[in-house]
């Protein structure tokens, strides 16, 4: 009986693939990555889809008529159509956007208390638009006003200011001399 001979098994797989060869693992990685990339791109495309590119909303610019038509105080003339108060004080005129800076309701003007009060969460503002009570974080916005060649006030709600000194000068506040008022 001869001693059993150690037989080396044939190397079925090379321990290291030749350079440039794709292994099964590489292939699976590639496949799953491609699938993940496909779903990620799909999700991104879906997210982009729900952001509209064109929206049909009313113009933010309107003609508020001649400045001399406004008496001292808060004018409600454009509230129901353009959500703007035209406010005339002894030194000039500004247009305030009737939108509470808290969560967007329309405040009401109470001349006896000299306050704007919001019906939704109780924010209170002064005539100048500053918050004096309630949860609103910033003052009411003033809209840009320009004087047309006809003498009419052109109000643009797309350009806004809420803090002094910006809100206290043109185009957010027009003085009597700028308006040609005595």
């Amino acid at each position: 009986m001869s001693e059993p001979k150690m037989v080396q098994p044939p190397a079925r797989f090379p321990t290291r693939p030749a350079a440039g060869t794709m292994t099964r693992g590489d292939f699976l990685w590639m496949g799953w990555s491609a699938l993940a990339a496909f779903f990620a791109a799909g999700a991104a495309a879906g997210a982009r889809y729900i952001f509209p590119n064109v929206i049909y909303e009313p113009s933010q610019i309107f003609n508020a008529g001649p400045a001399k038509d406004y008496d001292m105080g808060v004018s409600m003339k454009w509230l129901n159509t353009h959500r703007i108060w035209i406010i005339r004080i002894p030194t000039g005129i500004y247009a305030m956007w009737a939108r509470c800076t808290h969560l967007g309701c329309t405040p009401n003007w109470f001349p006896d208390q000299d306050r704007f009060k919001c019906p939704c969460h109780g924010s209170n503002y002064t005539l100048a638009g500053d918050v004096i009570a309630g949860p609103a974080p910033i003052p009411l916005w003033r809209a840009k006003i320009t004087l047309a060649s006809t003498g009419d006030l052109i109000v643009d709600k797309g350009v806004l200011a809420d803090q002094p000194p910006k809100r206290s000068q043109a185009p957010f506040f027009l003085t009597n001399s700028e308006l040609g008022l005595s």
Partner: protein
Amino acid sequence: MPTLDIDKIKQEVVDSQIWRAVFRGGVWSDTPRDRQAHISGNVWLHLHPAKVRPRALKWTYTWGLGGLSFALFLLLALSGVLLMFYYRPVPGLAFRDIKDLTYAVSMGRFLRNLHRWAAQAMVVAVIAHMVRVFLTGAYKRPREFNWSVGVLLLTLTLFLSFTGYLLPWDQLAFWAVTVGTNMAGATPLLGNSGPFSGLLGMHVNNDLRFVMLGGTSVGANTLLRFYVLHTIAVPLLVGILLILHFWRVRKDSFSAAPYQANEAKVDVWPNLVKREYIAAVALVIFIMFWAITKSAPLETIADPNVTMNPEKAPWYFAGLQEMLVYFDPWLAGVLVPNLIIVGLMAVPFIDTNPKGVGYYAWKERPFAITMFLLGVVMWFSLMAMGVFFRGPNYAWYWPWESWWTFKAAPPPTWNVFGPHGQAVLPLALGVPVLGGLFLAAMLLPKLIQRDLNGWKVLGGVLLATAALGAVGAGMGKFTGTQVGFLLFFAGMTTWFGFVMPQRHIRRLDWARYLVTMALVVSTMGILLKMGARLCFNIKYVMTVPVVSMNI
């Protein structure tokens, strides 16, 4: 003359190929095998197990609330589909269609009332179901995940109510959704008015609010979006989650009620199915009676320029509206609701108490039940404040006061850290002080590792507060009401924010302890801030206007 042999006809019908093709099984002889086959061979009934433990049938255990919620969901799906036949989601038409449904369409008013009242009943039923499951500890292992699915379903129930709210296009609808979507605009980072939103370049035409509205203000796109969400997207998601919810309930042996020795199971058909159907029929009759006797409200047509005074949310969002009075929108409208949802989902994972599964166990789970009920009571108190105690200009009116009563303008508010426009002071002073207080509140209950006498702690705090109040009142700084408020809030926060956690959860591991305390301290923070506003006119504890960050 041939006689009519009913039994013979019945036999022939039942044995016909058509009947047998539709309904399988042989002749019904009401054997246990028949009953089980009836459950497992029926696609509608097979969400039940064939047999169930008698304890799961006790109506004083479940109150049938999960089943009733599902019955209401089905009733809402049916009435909703019928309403869709007469409704067009376009601003010029939507309000007219609702008017037509109310005054011109046969059964239209009844269906709309039914839909509205069933929706409100579903909110009640789902909340009550959650409270029941909490009180019976039925969220504990292995049912943690199903509790989380349930919390999502509650959230979606409220979201369905919110999206449905816009569809009539009346004043209430328009302004509720204006406020709701502006809250989304206050989301940190993702909303145009939220804290740190500048970092991502958020504007009114590219933020989260813009996606919800499909524009920069509530308009035609918004109505269409909410319509699609309300009638298709969300109900589909709810349906999928319901299947998951029910399947898990069935897999988890249908009831968490503890096993008893030699417990014999009973057949689901007819014992459970009978109860479910009786409850559902009673509920439908109740809702129909309600819909016949009381009409759903409808205000005047939406006016995007003028808000009603006062503008009140539906009762289930009145708590949220009331909270918005005391906190910035990013806190009250975004952070707190999300914290409530995530906190509820985390409950099964932070509550390690193995006792009280499957029965009402007040004494065995004092901390969990007290804290949960405190949250529920606070939420409903806020609702009550919003519904009954608020009048024109959202001022405080007692329920017995006429809304024509003259109310003085509210006094000016002030900020503790950070006068307007100066960002350095709040950061240099406010962050260390507030951070220190927050850390102390978070850590103290665990760091004091011995049994304190809670009553003595509470008494000490109340005495100190009373002394402070007496001194302040003597100097003319405080009124009696303010001292009373101080005592109330000091007592509440000491007991629920310190004594209870110190007594019950100081031995929890750090991870669970910190998550639990984060929820407890947030709850106490809400109480404290409300007190600070109501009696000391404090607007913000800290404000950093540069990044729109107000606390």
